[in-house]
């Protein structure tokens, strides 16, 4: 919240769209603003009435550089918009930088997402440090209902919940790297970095960074799904393969490779396999192991086909580490299997578990 917990004293708030961006149709701007207000109305007792003239509580406008409030914009990119906390006069007013290109999709800046964030300020919300929250100060594109738990807790602290209890599904808070019960969705290398997927986020561990960096998947790759099941790097091809459900994508560096997504069945898996739990490439053998439920498959990268004799039982071939795997990685002759909050260090040569660690020991927790 802003200092002194500034809020509107009544629940019937008026707004007016003073001018429109030429980037979108007028009706698209109206819809983006109305939908952005509805995001907050869904979880509070607030209602919003549109005025077509006169002074409204929230005056919405598009302007560039110095636009009348001595708080100038800066041209394309950088600052996108700003809004004032509740109060008389300029309080609640919401300004968008006309030098940005506003869209209704994931290209450049999505007006609905920016408006929902700014209108959060206009209602009394300050910035959140949770990178998954709508009130995080850095722009990121996302789909679905944009509020996270943190946003809802914040706004309801000011106005209380919606008495009509309309069902909304908030996005969960960003996972905490040192949560002792933390599990992973997928782990892969990417040109010397380690990428760890968890829920809508990924962590990037770079040998020269002391702290891992947490980012929304959609922020880097808007066309990837919000949930990754498995991932592995093939360093010979300089590609990282990402699996979600029955689809797979390829990255070259951080760039998505054209021609994807493809169906995982193109690898030679039977149609009965609907999801890959974990994947790991073993450089020495040129094989990629694909784990599904209690079994695993071996894919030969050179021939582009599945090895015969598979699937085999995980429990039989990797004794000591249970029968299911969430994520897997390979370093210097050791396989690292992640399952729930546990990490198994498995010697590929001596065929046994050497150490059992917390999954998040990878973060030095």
């Amino acid at each position: 919240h802003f200092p002194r917990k500034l809020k509107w004293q009544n629940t019937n708030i008026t707004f007016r769209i003073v001018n429109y961006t030429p980037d979108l149709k007028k009706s698209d701007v109206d819809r983006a603003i109305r939908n952005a207000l509805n995001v907050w109305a869904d979880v509070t007792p607030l209602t919003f009435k549109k005025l077509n003239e006169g002074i409204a509580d929230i005056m919405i406008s598009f302007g560039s550089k110095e636009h009348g409030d001595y708080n100038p914009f800066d041209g394309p990119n950088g600052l996108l918009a700003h809004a004032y906390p509740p109060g008389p006069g300029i309080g609640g007013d919401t300004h968008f930088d006309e030098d940005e290109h506003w869209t209704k999709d994931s290209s450049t800046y999505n007006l609905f997402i920016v408006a929902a964030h700014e209108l959060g300020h206009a209602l009394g919300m300050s910035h959140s440090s949770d990178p998954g929250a709508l009130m995080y100060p850095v722009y990121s594109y996302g789909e679905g209902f944009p509020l996270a738990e943190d946003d809802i807790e914040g706004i309801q602290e000011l106005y209380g919940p919606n008495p009509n209890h309309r069902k909304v599904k908030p996005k969960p808070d960003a996972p905490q790297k040192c949560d002792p019960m933390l599990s992973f969705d997928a782990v892969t290398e990417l040109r010397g970095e380690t990428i760890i997927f968890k829920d809508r986020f990924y962590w990037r561990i770079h040998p020269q960074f002391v702290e891992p960096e947490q980012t929304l998947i959609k922020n880097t790759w808007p066309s990837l799904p919000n949930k990754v099941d498995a991932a592995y790097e093939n360093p010979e091809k300089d590609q990282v393969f990402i699996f979600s459900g029955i689809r797979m994508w390829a990255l070259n560096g951080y760039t998505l490779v054209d021609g994807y997504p493809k169906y995982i069945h193109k690898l030679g898996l039977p149609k009965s396999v609907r999801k890959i739990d974990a994947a790991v490439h073993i450089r020495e053998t040129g094989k990629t192991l694909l784990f599904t439920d209690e079994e695993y498959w071996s894919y030969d990268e050179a021939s582009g086909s599945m090895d015969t004799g598979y699937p085999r039982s995980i429990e039989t071939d990797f004794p000591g580490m249970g029968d299911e795997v969430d994520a897997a990685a390979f370093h210097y002759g050791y396989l690292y299997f992640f399952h729930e909050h546990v990490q198994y260090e498995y010697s590929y040569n001596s065929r046994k578990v050497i150490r059992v660690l917390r999954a998040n020991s990878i973060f030095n927790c």
Partner: protein
Amino acid sequence: GPLPHDNPDNVRLAERYLHRFYGLPAGLRGRKASLDAFQDKIKEMQEFFKLEVTGNLDENTLDVMQQPRCGVPDVGEYN
């Protein structure tokens, strides 16, 4: 290669960013007190974004400063 903080463009970017979002006083460059204020504000910013808190203008910190964002300050009284 040169460290990011050696690049005058990066320093200017950081000053503008810290001035706008963290209330860094303008026009104090070159004195020890101003360097302290600069580093304190970088630390504040790094803490907010859960970066490694060093007070130095490292690559990660610059990366966040360059991302498109909302113009409302992250800390302090809103003017």
